[in-house]
Structures are given as C-alpha cells and as structure tokens.
C-alpha cells in the first residue's frame, strides 16, 4: 500500500478526478438546461387526484411537475409524524380562481389517481393556463353546441377568433402604428421649423393638411378595429373547473387549447414542435412570464450584427497596423500587452464607460445638435441600440485584434517576400495575399467576438436593454432601422424574468428554455470558431513544411 502511494498512482487519479469534476459540471449543466428548458413544451398528461377522508373529499386536476419523498415530520399540516411521505409539485393552473399556479399534493388519503380522457387545457392571454372540462360553446349567449360536436365547434370558432386577433394586432401595430409614427414626425418637423424660425404659412398648411389626412386614415382604421373587437367578442365557452363550478371564458382571451390525454405520441410530438415554434416566434405576454421571446431574439441578433459591422473593420485595421505597419519596439509591445489585457477588464466597466461617454456625452451632444425639436425628451442621449452595439464593439475589439494579429503572424514570411519580389506593393501584398490567407483567423476572431457579445448582459443593462420594448428596432417606418430605440435581449430576458418577475415559479421553465436557446447559439458559434481555428492551423502547418 505504501509503495502504491509512493508510486504516485493515486495522485494521478486525483488529478484525473479534478478534470472529471470539471467535465461533469460542464456537461451536467448543459444537460440540466436542456432537460429543464425543453421539457416544458411537452404536453404532459393531466391527472385527476381524488382525495377522500372522513370529513370531506377533494379532486385536483393538475400536471405533475416533480415528485419527491420527504420525511413526514418536516411537513406541516398533516397528521402523520412517522416515516416518509411522497409529495408532488403540481401545476393546477387557474390562477384567477386559485391564486397561484402551483401547489403541493401529498400521497395521503389519496383514493384514486387517473387521467381523465376529456380534460382540456387552455392557454389564456391572461392568468396562465386553464384546466377543466368543456361544457358548451356559446354565441352571443346562445348555446350553439351539443354534447357531440362541442369540441369541434369550439376549435373552429377558436380558429376564427385567433384570426381576428391576428388581424387586430396587425392593424394596431402595423397601420395604426405607422400613422402614429408619422404624426409624431410631423409634430417634430413643425417644432423644428419653429426652432429654426423657418415656419412659413405655406409649410404650415402643408403640414396641417397632411395631419388631417393622417387623422382621417386613423379614424377609418380605428373603426375597423372596433368592428373586429365586436366580432371577436362574439363567442364564449362554459367550462367546469375541478371543484365543479362552471366558468365562462370568452374566446377572445384564449390563445390555444388542447386535450393532452387524448394525444398519441405523434400528436404530442407535433404539438411539442408547434409550442417550441410559438415560443421562438411569438411576443411575450404577462410581464414576459408567458408567450414567446421573439423580440428578445430579434434584439440580440440586431445588436450583434451591428456590433460585428462596427468591430470587424476597426479590429482588423488596428491589427494590421500593429503587425504590419507599426515599427516594432517597446511602445508597440506595451500597446499589445495593453490591448491583450483589455480583454480581461470587467465588462461592467465598459458598460459604465458606454453610459458616461456614449450615452450621456456623445448622445447628449448629438441631441443638442441634430434633434433640438424633440427636447427635452432625449433621442440619442438615452440608452439604445447604437450605444449598446458600440459598447460591445469596444468590449470585443481586443478579441478581434488578438485573433487577427495571430492570424497575420502565422502567415509565412516567404509568401510575403514572394509577393514583394514579384513587384507588388505592400498594400497589394496585404490585400491580395496576406488578408485572404488571414481571413479564417479574422473569422475566428469575429465569431468569438459575436459569441461573447451575445452572452454579455452586464454592460447592456446600462446602455440599452429593457425588459419590454414597445417596438422592434427594425420596422416598416422610415428610416426603418431605429438606432436610438431600446431593445430586448435574451440574456437580460433571463435575468429579468428569473429575478424580477412577479411569478418566478411559473416563469422558470421559460427561463430555462431561453437559456437553452442562448446556450445553443453560443456553443454553436464557439464550436464553429474552434473548428475554424483548428483547420487554419492544419493549413498553415502544411504551408510551413
């Protein structure tokens, strides 16, 4: 035994254990996010728990979220004091009736547990899910369904309601939004002319005329939406909750409905894919705790693209200067170390700089110079998309510079000399020979920069993200790309919904799902970068020989 210890084998195993812990932690974490995030959309069976004891009986209809065994004595409010009890965390929905979505159930006095075939789940616009049984469908207080066709009737009428709702949304966000936007621009134009003292009667009449026509358009659209609202209010259903009471749910308030216990595996899979798609493509509801995350995805992508557009030329030029043009000496070495170390400066520091310099200093001055008409409300003097992209570009600049420099330094000197020897100028050599060969390295740097930017939240909290942006930074209104707008971001969405939302428990699966999406994007980008880098190394190894 002593010899065995002296041989060092156990210590090597201990070292191996350390790396195993790290690996288990990484993959465990990814697995945890995957499971928790992706299981949420699966249409689990809804179960009915029938409780019966001497005094009373109770039925609970719910989805089981998790079950565990706990010592009986640690549970309050039950009679048993010995041994263990099994308990379930279940989702009962019906927050409007019960006060919360979740509750604990115990395996005590449980007489029967079943999966009732015709139980129905409704995803509502407000108050979360509804669980219960469909009784009948009503059109303007007149019953229009019988026992056999009620489900089909409900579904066809729901389709109609959903279509109308989409149309309303389209009108309000599209046409009416555009009119409001144009009206606001007219107001600003008028104010600008007043400030510049150039408002002539002629122009005033033009503006007023335009305003009148916009207002009349607005009226017609408003009437259209009012008509649609009347239409959508037509139908409603009556449904029974688990305690037997009947409730009325207007179809206007319903997103979708399903009967999970009737689904077979294929249908469940289909439903799952649909839910996942809805999550990615829809707007959030209920303070971000329900619905989709489309604006957050869109905002993240927008911001990252802008950042990439800003950071690539800057980083590449800086790297070319450092590597190809600057006289290599002490100063350049110091600068190189400084640039390297900037990658290690905490991101929040960049956020603070962005807020102080970009937003308040640059933005404030831009507002004073170019947007005096909208004062005192700031245009660029407030956190927004442009400043976020710029801040993150600065943050990721060292990444691009370092990667590009590394790429440039790997290109064999013989190639440059060959090009120069054939009479090419330095810039021609750079442009035609060096840069194309370094492009994979530049790509690697860019991808790493994008991956870092996509996951960075702390600086963005200061320079532009919001929990709920009223409109996307890209839309159909001139000038289409609104750099001054605030935007939503996946990372901030996670922070906000996970920690600042009123109903953390209900929102948690969505946070996991969002996390999963973000992880997929970032891990994907990183793997691409790693592969690219490896390929690059192979390529130049061949060249070196």
């Amino acid at each position, binding site marked *: 035994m002593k010899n*065995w210890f002296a*041989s*060092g*084998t*156990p210590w*090597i*195993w*201990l*070292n*191996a*254990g*350390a*790396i*195993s*812990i*790290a*690996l288990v932690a990484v*993959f465990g*974490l990814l697995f945890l996010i995957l499971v928790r995030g992706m299981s949420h959309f699966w249409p689990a069976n809804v179960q009915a728990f029938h409780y019966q004891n001497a005094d009373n009986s109770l039925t609970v209809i719910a989805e089981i979220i998790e079950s565990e065994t706990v*010592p009986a004595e640690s549970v309050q409010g039950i009679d048993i004091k010995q041994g263990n009890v099994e308990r379930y965390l279940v989702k009962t929905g019906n927050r409007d009736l019960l006060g919360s979505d979740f509750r604990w159930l115990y395996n005590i006095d449980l007489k029967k547990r079943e999966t009732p075939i015709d139980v129905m789940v409704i995803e509502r616009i407000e108050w979360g899910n509804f669980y219960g049984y469909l009784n009948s469908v009503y059109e303007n207080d007149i019953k229009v369904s019988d026992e056999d066709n009620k489900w089909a009737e409900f579904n066809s009428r729901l389709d109609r309601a959903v279509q109308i709702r989409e149309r309303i949304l389209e009108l309000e966000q599209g046409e009416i939004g555009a009119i409001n936007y144009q009206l606001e621009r007219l107001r600003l134009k008028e104010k600008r002319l007043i400030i510049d003292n150039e408002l002539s009667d002629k122009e005033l009449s033009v503006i007023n005329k335009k305003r009148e026509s916009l207002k009349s358009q607005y009226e017609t659209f408003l009437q259209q939406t009012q008509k649609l609202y009347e239409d959508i209010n037509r139908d409603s259903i009556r449904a029974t909750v688990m305690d037997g009471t009947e409730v009325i749910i207007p179809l206007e308030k319903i997103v979708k409905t399903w009967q999970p216990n009737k689904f077979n595996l294929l249908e469940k899979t289909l439903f799952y894919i649909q839910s996942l798609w809805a999550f990615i493509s829809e707007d959030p509801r209920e303070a971000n705790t329900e619905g989709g995350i489309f604006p957050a995805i869109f905002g993240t992508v927008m911001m990252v693209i802008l950042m990439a557009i800003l950071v690539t030329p*800057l*980083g590449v*030029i*800086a790297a070319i*200067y450092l590597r190809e*043009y*600057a006289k290599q000496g002490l100063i350049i070495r110091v*600068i190189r*170390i*400084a*640039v*390297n*170390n900037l990658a*290690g*400066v*905490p991101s*929040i520091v960049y*956020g603070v*700089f962005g807020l102080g310099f970009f937003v308040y200093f640059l933005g404030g001055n831009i507002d004073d110079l170019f947007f005096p008409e909208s004062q005192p409300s700031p245009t660029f003097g407030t956190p927004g998309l442009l400043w976020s992209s710029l801040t993150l570009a600065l943050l990721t600049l060292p990444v691009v*510079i370092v990667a590009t420099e590394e790429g440039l330094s790997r290109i064999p000197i013989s190639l440059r000399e060959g090009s120069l020897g054939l009479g090419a*100028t330095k*810039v*021609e050599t750079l442009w035609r020979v060096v840069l194309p060969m370094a492009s994979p390295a530049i790509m690697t740097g860019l991808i790493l920069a994008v*991956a*870092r930017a996509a*996951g960075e*939240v*702390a600086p963005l*909290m200061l320079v532009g993200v919001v929990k709920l942006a009223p409109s996307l930074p890209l839309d159909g209104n001139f000038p289409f790309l609104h750099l001054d707008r605030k935007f939503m971001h996946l*990372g*901030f969405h996670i922070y906000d919904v*996970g*920690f600042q939302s009123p109903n953390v428990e209900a929102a*948690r699966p969505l946070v996991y799902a969002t996390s999963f999406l*973000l992880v997929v994007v*970032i*891990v994907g980008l*990183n*793997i691409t970068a*790693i592969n690219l880098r490896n390929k690059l190394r192979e390529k130049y190894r061949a060249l070196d020989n």
Partner: protein
Amino acid sequence: MTCIVRTMNNRMLQHKYNQRALKDRLARYFVAIGGISVIVAILLIFFYLLQVVIPMFESADIAESHAYSVTDEGKILHIGIEEQGTMAVRFTDRGQVVFFETDSGQIVKRYKLDLPSNITTISSNLDLVIIGLANGQVMLVKYVFEPGYGEDKRILTPLLEYPLGKALIVLDESAQALVHLDLRFNQDGFGLVGTTSDKRLVFNHYLQEESFITEEITTVINSRSVHKIDEDINSLVLSSDLNHLYVALEGGILRDYILSEAGFEDNYSDYKINENISNIQVLLGGSSLLIGLENGEVQQWMSVRKQHGRELTFIRKFHETKESISEIKSEQQRKGFAVGDTNGAITLYYSTSQRTLATINTANKKITNLAWSARAQHLLATDDGGKFYLYEVDNEYPEVSWDVLWGKIWYEGYDEADYIWQSSASTNEFEPKFSLMPLTFGTIKAAFYAMIFAVPIAILGAMYTAQFMAPRMRQTVKPSIEIMEALPTVILGFLAGLWLAPYVETHLSGVFALLLVLPFGFILCAWLVGYLPNNTAIEGWEALILMPVVILLIWISTAISAPIEDLFFNGDMRTYMSDQWGINYDQRNALVVGLIMGFAIIPTIFSIAEDAIFSVPQHLIRGSLALGASRWQTMLYVVMPAASPAIFSAVMMGFGRAVGETMIVLMATGNTPLMDMSIFQGMRTLAANIAVEVPEAEVASTHYRVLFLAAFILFMFTFIFNTAAEMIRHRLRKKYSGL
C-alpha cells in the same frame, strides 16, 4: 514605331506605377491613422473614467462677486436669499423687512412690521423667521420669493406671510425681554423656547390641527414651563424631536435639558468643553449639533446610544480659523455648513467627510449673519459694519474624501464609526454613505471563495490534461473547457440563484460531505482499478472512467445528506448552526457564489496553466524519466517547478476575472453590503453595485462619480493584475526558448 509604343507603354507603366505607389502610401496613412485611433479609443476608457472621477477630489471654490454697504434704521438681525441668489431679504431690529437685489443692494420692496415693542432677538428655521420682542412676545413671519415669468425673464415678487396670523404669541408671561429664541416643528405641533433677560428658560409647546374642510390650521397652546438658571447663556438650540434643549453656558458648558410635551423634566446633563461656546446650530436633519467655539473650532456632537441611554457624544471637529466663531449656517440640502468668525473669515466645511472646503476673508470684520441659497450656490453675509457680501460658491462634491471612501465614518444615527455603503434614500436630509470598503470586501470575498473552489480543480485538472491524458481524449477535453468559458454568466447566475441556492440549502451537509467523498472516492477507485487485469490499457483514460464515478459520488452525497443531518445536526444543519454556533444562513451566500463563479473561472485558470505545463520542454521530462523518476515524481519535481510562474499568473488571471464578474454575484448573492467573511452570508461586490445603482444615479452627482470611481478601481485592478500576470508568462516563455 516600336520606339513610340515603348515610350507610350513606359509612360503608361510609369503612370500606373505612380498610381500604385500613391495607393500604397494612402493605404499606409489610412491604416496608421485608423490603427492609432482605434488604440487611442481603447485608451480613452482610462482617461474618460479618470476625468469623471477627478472633480470629486477638487476642493470647492468661493469667490466674492459683490460687496456693498446699506443704510437702514437699526441693526441687521437676519438675512435670507432666494434659490437662484438674485434677491435677498434682511430683517432689522426696528422691524424693517427689506427685499433687495443681491448684485447691487437696490431695494425692491420694504415692509415695516407692526410690532408693539422693540425687537431683541431673531432666530430662523429656513425661511421662517422668529422674532422675539422686549415684552416677551414672539412673532412668526415667513418670507417668500414668489416666482413668475414674463417676457423670457424670471420675475420674483417678494411677499411676507404670517403662518400663525398677525397676532403675537406670548412666550414669556412675565413679559421680560427675550434674549435667545428657537422654534422647531414636529409632526403634531411645534415647540418654542427662549431665554429672558432675567435668566429664565421659557418653553412653550403648541399643538396644531388641520381642519378637514377648510384646511385651516388652528394652533392651541399645550403647555408652558419655565426654568430658572444661574449661569450666563451664550446660545441655545432645540432638538428636532422637541425632546432636548441644548444650551451653551458661559465657561464652555453644554447643557442638555430633557423636555417633554409638558415642558422641562428637571433633568439635565452637562458636558464640559475646553473653550467657551459662542454659537450652537443644528446641522440639516436635526441629528447633529454644531458647536462654535471662541478659539475658532467647530465641533460636531451627536446623541448616541450608550449603555446607560442616549448621551451627547463628540464626533469630529473642524478647525481652520483661529478667531471666535460668530455665525454658523447649515446648508439647506446637504450636510455642509458655513462658518463666519469675528475676523471676517468665512469657511466652508462638510460634516461627513470632515473636509475644509474653502475659506475666504474679504470682510475683515466680524461676520454677523450668513444665508445660503437653496442649492448652496450663493452665500450672503453681513458684517457688523452693515456691509453685505455675496459669494459665489462652486462646491458640488463635498461628500467625498479619502476617509469617507476607505475609512470608518461616524454617521448620524449610528452608535459608532463604521464602514457603510448606503447611497440614496427618499428624503433630502439623508446623509449619503459612500464607503467603498464593504463593496471591496464583498468583491474580494466572492473572488476568494470562487478561488478556493476553482484553483485546485483547474490546476490539478491542468496537470492531468497536459501530462497524463491520452492525446485523443485531450483533443475533446480542451474544447469542452473552452465552451465552459464561453457559457454566458447570466445563465450561470440564474442557475446559481434559482437552482443551486435552494439545492444547497436543502442538501447542505451533502455538499460538505462531497469535500471528503470525492477525493477518497477517487483514490478508492484507483485502488480498485489496480486489481483489474490489463489495467495499463486505461492509462490516460482515467478521467473518462472517473466521470461516472463523480456522478455516483455526487448522488451518494445527496442521498446521505438527510441521514447526516439527522445524525449530527438534529435533522437540520442550518437551524443547528444558528442555534449552536450562532452562524446565520442566507440562501444566497458565498458558498453558492463560490461554486458557480468557481465554475466560471476554472476555464481561465485551466487554459493558461495547461498551456504552460504542456509546453514544458519534452527533453526535461524524458531526462527525468530516464533517470528513474516516476511519472508523478517528474510531474512534481520537474514539470511543476518549471511551469509554476505561469500557473501563478493563471491564478492571477482567474482572480482578475472573479473580481470583475457581475451577473453571477448580482443574481446569486443577496447584494447586502455587509462586511462578514462567513461562507453562509451574502455580499455586494463593486461590479454588482455598479450594475444596480448606475442606471438610477443622477448624472454628474457625487453618487454617479463614486460609481465611476468604483468602475475605475475595477479597471485599474484587473488591468494591473493582468499585466503582471502577462509579464510573468512572458518571462517564462523567454526562459523556455532558452532551453
């Protein structure tokens, strides 16, 4: 012919060549300018942060803008100045109230108060003037500068209001002349106190009630009480809760009378001060006394809770001038004050930071009255020759000093000096507390616990990966760790706060059991593998074999968690700890932060350390092995010494990253700025504090600049740390290239 073509060709070639050379030159300038400006932009961060921070440490400026004499009937007893410093008011002892322009002294409006007797003293409470008469009566007058706008100009209309009506209040029933006066409001009325020429203290308490219907306020006297004293009284001041009357007596005695609504409680305590007191004032907020002495010193005293009840306690002193203090005036929105002395010098102090901000002497005569404008940008003074002085004060950041940021400060309402961060509150009278100590402490604490977890795993793991692991496995392990580095910290923070924190809370003893179970489990596993036939085949793949073992061991630890708690901790480790050892448990604590932030910094340390160990020259290792050393001995005595500087720099880089990490600490700690090293308590770090407070800080306020200072500290700290680490690595690389 050919000749012409050739020259043409030559010319074209020449032209083309010139063009190319021009392009080359242009590109050179373009790249140089572009490259330099990008680098400058990066360096801008440093200078910009510095530029925001520096104004905080500059001292204040005070400059005389106007001085003029006025001729009035009588002596000036009180002055006041409006918010923007354009108009002022003076009260004389003949009942004259004169509103005048501050720049010229030109009179705007003159009132004559209708008084039955001569004025003997005037005291004030912001814009409320309390006038004491020779017949023991008191009149309350409020001066108002009513703002209005006309023709792009702000127009002020001076007005006098009588909050209790024009009728006089009888303070002293025996109708003696009043010498000193003070009045304070509390929530249900006010207290009025005065001294009379026959050395009696008179205290009246009044109740005020607002009628629901007419909103009219009725004032009723609640109690009258009188106290005779023998000593000469220099000055007095009433506490804002009406429970104390502080009187300065001749001979340097500060007397604290206990009051109730019924009046004097026949109970007082004396505090001896070495010098004669010339003036007492309360600081804004009413919790501190400012005591001006005849040797020019100003002392700040506070009522502090001690063993035997509350006691007046000396807090700090300010001593710039050497002449007797004749007037003290507290600012209206901050804890600063101006002091005038008998020689005409005016000094600005700030209480919390104990700073002497500025001093000026243009009067050379005793300063009799001082008045601050609301935002403390203008200071009006009079001397006893009836001359007025208007000073412009530029004093934006008096709250901060080295001691405030890094030292213990005795704040109002606290029992002792302490490090406290509390940057804002709802009231104006709040004393901002800008100690960076708790935040720095929290930052280091979080980083420390993260390092405890990360350093062993990262370095041991790096040792194994670099030297013992099979190359094929290494090819997948390294990217996995790189992906670990790329995981967004917001996700880690979210998991820490919402998944790990509750998990650790319920499996606390299991988490600690892991500390033992894991290493022993690994060694046990190694021992068992030794008995396998053909066990050399797994050499280099130990880590793969151990992965299921790790999962198993974690599962075992979780499973034995509850039994351990039953066995040793009466079923619940947290309750047991707080009962038996007095250790409190926060759900979001340093343990959780340490685990998750450790996870986040493992890759940083691992990558650098692994590179360093891997790049130790092979001939060193082969030499050692050839001499008969075992693989482990080679590792320990050859590889590690060679790589140790780089490993040290890896640890430094990891520390640098942990210090600046924001989202994890923001989400996984309670963000409480306390100084407690306990692993079961939360903390607030510099970075998290910035993230929380910057969006709400008023631009260019002291708070905003202090947060920028915090960012600057983070910047400098990580920059210096990383540079040092980089230098170490650089030197090591040189050393290897020599080998």
